[in-house]
């Protein structure tokens, strides 16, 4: 745990229970909740971004890329397993998976 999240004395807390740094839950690990994990298969991915838009943990990391015709676009780079809770929604909603010929997001039991 980062130093700034160590328990503080009452004198050292900001007023009124405010969390002064919005979005700092990114520092909190929820990856430990996983019992299964999605595996992104770049070679089969069509970059539709369905997994990205549906992911409740905002765990799909994007990068800048281009389409075949050279137009700039956002593409999947990786999965942030620090946050991924392993719900499997990405694999379930993946259109490549749905077609049934290839797998773009595999979903496997977590090994502990």
């Amino acid at each position: 745990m980062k130093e700034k999240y160590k328990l503080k004395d009452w004198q050292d807390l900001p007023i009124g229970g405010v969390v002064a740094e919005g979005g700092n839950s990114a520092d909190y690990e929820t990856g430990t909740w996983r019992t299964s994990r999605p595996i992104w298969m770049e070679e089969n991915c069509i970059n539709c971004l369905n997994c990205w838009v549906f992911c409740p943990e905002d765990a799909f990391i994007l990068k800048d890329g281009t389409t075949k015709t050279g137009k700039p676009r956002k593409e999947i780079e990786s999965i942030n397993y620090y946050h991924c809770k392993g719900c499997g929604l990405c694999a379930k909603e993946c259109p490549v998976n749905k077609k049934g010929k290839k797998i773009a997001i595999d979903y496997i039991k977590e090994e502990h």
Partner: protein
Amino acid sequence: MSKILAITGAGAMSECMRQINPDVVPAFPITPSTQVIEDFSQFVADGKVDTEMITVESEHSAMSACIGAAAAGGRVMTATSSAGMALMWEMLHIAASMRQPVVMTLINRALSAPINIHADHSDSMGARDAGWIQLYAENNQEAYDNLIMAPKIAENMDVRLPVMVCMDGFIISHCVQTMQLEDDDKVKAFIGEFESTYPVLDTENPATWGALDLQDYYMEHKRAQHMAMKNAKDVIEKVSADFADIFGRKYELFESYRLDDAERVIIAINSVCGEIKEVIDERRENGDKVGLLKIRSFRPFPYKEIAQALAGVKVVTVLDRSESMGAYGPLFVEIRTALFDAPEKPMVYNRIFGLGGRELFMSDIHDIFEENKTYLETGKVEKMFDYLKVRGG
């Protein structure tokens, strides 16, 4: 220009709100505080203030909107009474715990049932643990002066707590009294600019207000809030001293009226203190050593200072204008606590009076002093607790 004028207590509060010119006023009408927001609405309509009003659909929403508006980053005021404040209940605590310096006029009125629109203190006394600073006033002038001081107390960075400025329903809110209305610019200058803390409208530094505390943080937040209320005592004294320097009227945490050599003392809150002073003056002319201790700040409660002020007093009659069923009156409990460590404890007893606006005449106050005279002579309190002026005894 400062001027003397004849005005109702409610009118005085709306005039003061006009002078303060808060950014936002969420309000909902309830007798007897309605005139405060009616008059203020007229000021808005006439362009005498640039306040944005929110004519909410309930008092719960009034206080919710007060908290939202204050957290957004500006000065917020409202007014209510009785059931209105009871409906705010949940939000009173939240306003205080979120440390929002909301200022509210509370025109004290009895709580239902039976429904009754007249003065007693069951509304504010019920809210005494809500975390609000509570200032009480004997008359229009004091209520007006308290309201001028309230934003400065509430917004002080060592305090940041909401303040309710209380006065008796009808007896003060609806009665015309003369008072000194201070110069607008002088009032504005006294109050100064609002400073915000982690304002919700700061999108550059997005803050999260109203997070969930679990067992690991709740007590620390409460402890910090306790400290703020403790600080409020000094800040009330400091702001009152500054007020006296500028406007000439001097206020303490409580008023000591002819206490110096008093043997028998009444302790009371709000308008009844006017009659008590009259009676004391009459009795003093006959050499009777009686006095009054009038509470101004009930939260924070000045225990030590009151104990010191009562040194040498032999009998204390505490008048409570509200009930705590199955217990003593709320003021009595505080006074007894204050006196527990006093080297020479006076006799202290409790009388409930004036519920739902029941009058207490000067003759009744004479009766109180006659009764506590007997207690002094016999050295014994006959009745610790009793009702005054109730049929059937």
